[in-house]
């Protein structure tokens, strides 16, 4: 399945919890904000937002990474556009 993973740089404080949990999806940039990778790669250059193809296990980990963010700066949407995290 595909998920849209987005970091709001205005909310991100660079705590790096997301990076600790899922380094292949999140890394820190020079502004000390997390950006989003697709399995360690950055097709189209660095971005705070991307669609990524994930397995069930990867989906669970990416949601865990989002849950770990102390400022709720990581947003996850499914293919239908439903916000999976943070829960509304």
């Amino acid at each position, binding site marked *: 399945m595909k998920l849209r993973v987005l970091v709001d740089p205005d*909310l991100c*404080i*660079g705590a*790096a919890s997301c990076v*600790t949990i899922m380094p292949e999806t999140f890394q820190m940039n020079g*502004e*000390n904000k997390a950006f989003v990778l697709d399995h360690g790669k950055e097709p189209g250059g660095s971005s705070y937002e991307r669609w990524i193809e994930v397995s069930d296990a990867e989906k669970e980990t990416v949601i865990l990474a989002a849950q*770990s963010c*102390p*400022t709720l700066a990581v947003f996850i949407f499914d293919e239908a556009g439903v916000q999976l995290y943070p829960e509304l």
Partner: protein
Amino acid sequence: MRLVIIGGGIAGVTAAEEVRKLDSDAEITILSEEFHPLYSRVLLPHFIKGKVSRERVFLKKPEWYSEKNIDWQPGVVVKSIDTNNKFVHTSEEREIEYDKLLIVTGCDVRTIGEDGSNVSYWRTLDDTDHLLKLIASNPAKATVFGGGFMACEYVNAFAHHGVSTSVLTRGPWFWSKILSKESGTLINAHLAARGVDVTPNATEPTVMDDNTIFGIGIGIHPELSLMRDAGIEVNEGVKTNEYLETNVPDVYAAGDVAEFMDVTAGRQRVVGNYMNAQMQGRAVAKIICGEKVRFELVSSYATNALGLEIIFIGDTDRNAADSVEVQGSAREGAVSERFFRGGKLVGAVLINKNLERKVITDEIRGS
């Protein structure tokens, strides 16, 4: 298994959530002095600045606890622990028995001698509501007392609201038990250039009712008498091994209150940051459920002083280091400090050197 958790912060609630995933039959009780469901303390500065609404600071809704079959008792304080007969005594004069006990009581703020309605401390959501009221009352200025994380948060919050601010640090510069003079000079110069003067080696301010807000950020300390009286070994925090086990069987500690064996630093130490509290909550849940995996994490605390990024990684206690290597300078606008012990890198502070973070974290972790 009856699990009793003392403290409903991020460490306690994460542990409860994880235990529930691993053991659907466990009887889980959270005794929590605060009345609110779990919220993120890290979001409180965002809330003060209006970046998020008040309801967005909550990480759990009140009904979440019952949905997960967790007995959450807000407003209940544990008064004593009987480790021989395995029960805790609460402020409501109840005795609650446990098979396993988790201590996640966090820290309290250090206070100054004087008090007044214009004095602010910053730990809880209620403190944040009070601070917002003070800011809304149109203060003439703000005085920040302290030179650590909360002092920085006060400076940022007051600047955001256009309140003229000065800082009194107790030491010669910000984080003077960690940072060298070079870093201290860089931070002070950065603040001064933005209209915030820092007075070093200051004594406690006299609290006067002259339309000034006093933001007190002189550190936090754990309340340990509850544990000491119960025969649980304490020092700077509740002592644990790398499995977050205390000296008393079936009693565990995690989060800001724990002085745990940090295998990445090679010594027992207290760590006061969100990542550590949350990951320890997760780890201790596994350990309580019988999956004995040792806790291992290089955690960090990233802060920012009026736009200057400061990142603390691993063990940055200057007194516990054999040597500290300082690179860069205040003039260059960027400084890094590396802390070594036993020939190994154990910690670092990066000021305006964000990109070195990954390499350093990997080196401390030994990967």
